[in-house]
């Protein structure tokens, strides 16, 4: 986390991906394994850890901070969905036939969300995300400067986070 705060992208990515494993465990213990919203919550929380990293105090241990974010997202989720999900006994069969929540089988279609972004933002996000170009390549393809690409991605992420939370309201 500390190296990520200093601007080291690789370290930041490592931190996020190890957090994603912990978070998946944390949420699945509380929602039940294979819950449909599991991966959404993991993504929401990772996005919050990323966008709100200024609110982390380096003098404090990181893990409690990250779990406080996760807990906030979980409570928010319960509030939106009306407390814990319950289902009548007759439908209990469905509970066992839960789709195998393969990682990434997300209810919310983020590619559709991506479609709502302005063209420039979407294009660089797709370049960097889907086709695995580096930022430099994406910059060349779109004719923007490298820092403009980074700014686009940053704004795109923020806009996505906002859309996601608007959609859930």
């Amino acid at each position, binding site marked *: 986390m500390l190296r990520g705060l200093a601007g080291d*992208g690789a370290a*930041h990515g490592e931190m996020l991906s190890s957090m994603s494993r912990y978070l998946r465990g944390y949420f699945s213990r509380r929602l039940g394994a294979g819950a449909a919203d599991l991966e959404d919550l993991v*993504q929401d929380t990772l996005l919050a850890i990323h966008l709100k990293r200024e*609110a982390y105090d380096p003098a404090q241990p990181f893990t409690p*901070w990250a779990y*406080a*974010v996760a807990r906030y997202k979980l409570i928010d989720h319960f509030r939106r969905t009306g407390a814990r999900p319950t289902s009548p006994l007759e439908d209990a069969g469905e509970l066992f036939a839960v789709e195998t929540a393969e990682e990434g089988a*997300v209810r919310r279609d983020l590619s559709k969300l991506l479609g709502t972004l302005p063209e420039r933002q979407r294009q660089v996000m797709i370049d960097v995300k889907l086709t695995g170009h580096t930022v430099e390549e994406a910059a060349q393809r779109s004719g923007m400067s490298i820092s403009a690409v980074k700014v686009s991605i940053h704004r795109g992420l923020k806009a996505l986070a906002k859309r996601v*939370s608007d959609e859930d309201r």
Partner: protein
Amino acid sequence: MKTDELIALMSTDVAPVSAGAVGRRMASASLAAAGLALMVLMVWLGLRHDLMGAMHTGPFWMKAGYTIGLTVGGLMLVERLARPGTAPGSGLWVLAAAFMGVTTLGAINLALSAPRQWAAAWLGDSWTVCPFRILIISAPAFAAIIWGLKRFAPTRLALTGAAAGLLAGGIGATIYGLHCNESTAAFVATWYTLGIAACAGIGALLGPRLLRW
């Protein structure tokens, strides 16, 4: 979008952030809040006519000391509460000390004066309007504080809203002190406190609505 892709996306864009970001931003939000409050005061009520003279007197600084103390305490609270999973911390002690100070002073003053002057010392000339004026002057200040907080991640929204209201109230009351010519600690301890507490109460009500992220 798969989670790994999201992570890859987020790690392409890692602007460095510094440790004191919360404190700095909240301090500048407080300055903006003070500016807004001062604008409202100038347009609405104006400064007290004898401001230059009053600045050489004790009561003026007693008032300012109290409200600035509450402002500092509120700022310390907000700076902590803006972070997930953090306890309110020592700001509470600053608030308590400021309040104890002004009530003790007020009690001593009353004890030293004759009982028939008590009502005048306690109610002054403006007790009916003072808390409302503080509330109104603090409203734009509150907006500025909330604007500053939106960037961060409070997890206890009502408590954070109350702290933000208190901070805005402290700033608003400090600014209102430039107009108000009451001079007794008993007055300040009661009516200023009431106005600031109302700000904190409204902040607690609005916090969960305004501060969600």
